[in-house]
């Protein structure tokens, strides 16, 4: 279940630096992600925003040579603490990737259930209910309820991406990380995902990396601008887009580079 809305700060980073070997790609970034908000991370390609996102559920350390300094706190506890199990953590912080990544050999139902099954076995009825719940929250239920046993590859690209959202939601995470979730979708698919984010933020804390400035403006409450691994500016979305305080931010959002 989603945590109570009064949990003030859910996720924050403290002086987080992410490195590949000796090369730092995210430098000394501290951000608070307030509960039940959408935070968009924008910036030109290679600015470190995706790496930063991958630090939030410890996916970065799976990359060749990936490691960090600093802290990532979930409810005040450092997720990089040696006592924390990264696998368990990723069940509390779900992730959706740039391209839809349904498991091609599984049915629609099994794709959503996969996230539950790795979580230990449960009664069938409970899985059924969780799958339906996740598909409903991902706004996909009505489109697939009659063909849950069909291959996930029968779905369109946009539907596949919502399926991946459902898969991430099934284990009831608290935080949802999205890495350019609409980069490979057509405008209709993109619109459905954006509408979805509006509904999801009532239950989840969402961090979304996007290349699309309009998207960031449409979906987010807060926006952070990354450039060359630094967090240049972070603020309420309407303020950052209307009166940015840093000239780099202004140059980027007005399209002068990037």
């Amino acid at each position: 279940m989603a945590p109570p809305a009064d949990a003030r700060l859910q996720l924050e980073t403290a002086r987080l630096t992410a490195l590949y070997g000796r090369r730092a790609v995210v430098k000394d970034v501290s951000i608070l992600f307030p509960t039940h908000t959408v935070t968009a991370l924008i910036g030109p390609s290679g600015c470190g925003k995706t790496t930063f996102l991958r630090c939030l559920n410890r996916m970065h350390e799976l990359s060749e040579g990936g490691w960090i300094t600093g802290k990532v706190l979930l409810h005040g506890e450092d997720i990089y603490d040696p006592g924390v199990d990264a696998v368990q953590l990723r069940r509390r912080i779900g992730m959706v990737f740039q391209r839809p990544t349904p498991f091609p050999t599984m049915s629609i139902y099994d794709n959503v259930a996969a996230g539950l099954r790795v979580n230990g076995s449960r009664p069938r009825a409970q899985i059924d209910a969780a799958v339906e719940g996740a598909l409903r929250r991902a706004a996909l239920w009505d489109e697939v309820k009659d063909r849950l046993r069909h291959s996930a590859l029968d779905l369109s690209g946009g539907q596949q991406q919502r399926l991946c959202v459902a898969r991430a939601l099934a284990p009831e995470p608290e935080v949802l990380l999205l890495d350019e979730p609409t980069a490979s979708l057509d405008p209709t698919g993109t619109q459905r995902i954006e509408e979805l984010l509006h509904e999801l933020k009532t239950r989840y804390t969402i961090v979304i990396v996007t290349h699309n400035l309009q998207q960031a403006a449409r979906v987010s409450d807060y926006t952070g601008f990354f450039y060359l691994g630094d967090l240049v500016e972070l603020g309420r979305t309407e303020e950052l887009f209307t009166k940015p305080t840093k000239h780099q931010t202004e140059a980027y959002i007005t399209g002068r580079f990037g």
Partner: protein
Amino acid sequence: MATLPMEQAAAPEPRWQVLRGTNVGDRVYRGVLTAQALSLPLLLLALVSELALNAWPAIRRFGVHFVWTSVWDPVAGVFGAAPMIFGTIASSLLALLLAVPLSLGVAIYLTEFAPKWLRQPVSFLVELLAAIPSVVYGLWGVFVLIPFLRTYVVPPLRATLGWTPFLSGVFYGNSLLAGSVILAIMIVPYIAAVSREVLLAVPVSQREAALGMGATRWEAVWTAVVPYGRAGLIGAVILGLGRALGETMAVTMLIGNRHDIGLSVLQPAYTMAAAIANEFSEATTDLYLSALFEVGLILFVITVAVNALARLMIWRVARGTAVGSRAL
């Protein structure tokens, strides 16, 4: 260059003719390549017809009994190949049973778990196993494997599963078990190498999708990586089976070459390939020779059937049907 667009549009035919070309060199080149490409299927055809032609006397004499009966009496001129067919299939399947888990384990370890510096050397060494000549495997089997089996494997097997018919009789060394184990060792490099390539070709995004939803590495392998590559993995196994069916030298040296059908893996058996190799030089009568040709023909047919089956399985699996949903 100087022509007007109008003129170009008016006369497309001649221009196209020029492009298509009447270049003599091109035609010769094409002819040579076509001939080369066709020569291999023709060779195959010639091989099959020669086999069938030479096997014809035995086929006419024994009919289907050749496949079903077990008497192999060159003196009386009675031939039945059932024990060899049984031995070939039994030794190959037993070899697969031993080799597939091992090969898959090696491939998964090398692609998913091994530290980077270890991956190349180990896969190189595994593949090197394929380069060892068959007869060397046979020698090693006689002098190392059989004593090892006799001392360390057969006694505990007997102690635990001795009541089953599969372990009855005295173990002299040369046996279905020894032949199968050597076959297993010989096909591991093939299955492991192909499986490794297959697993390497599974997109990183699939692994990350599984890990991102809170799967352990082990769960990621079994929920995402292996299912994604299953068509290729089946192909790898079938490739190994194909090698096992046709392998001759090492098996001949270890399997005992007894023309008999028995359930016990500790008893000697015979394979088709071994029989052909052993008996060709002593096939004095035309019927004997013809019977050996028929054995060759059957071996050929089985191998082709296995490969066809593999194609079919790969094709069915690769269509992307939701196989996993059937488990529910």
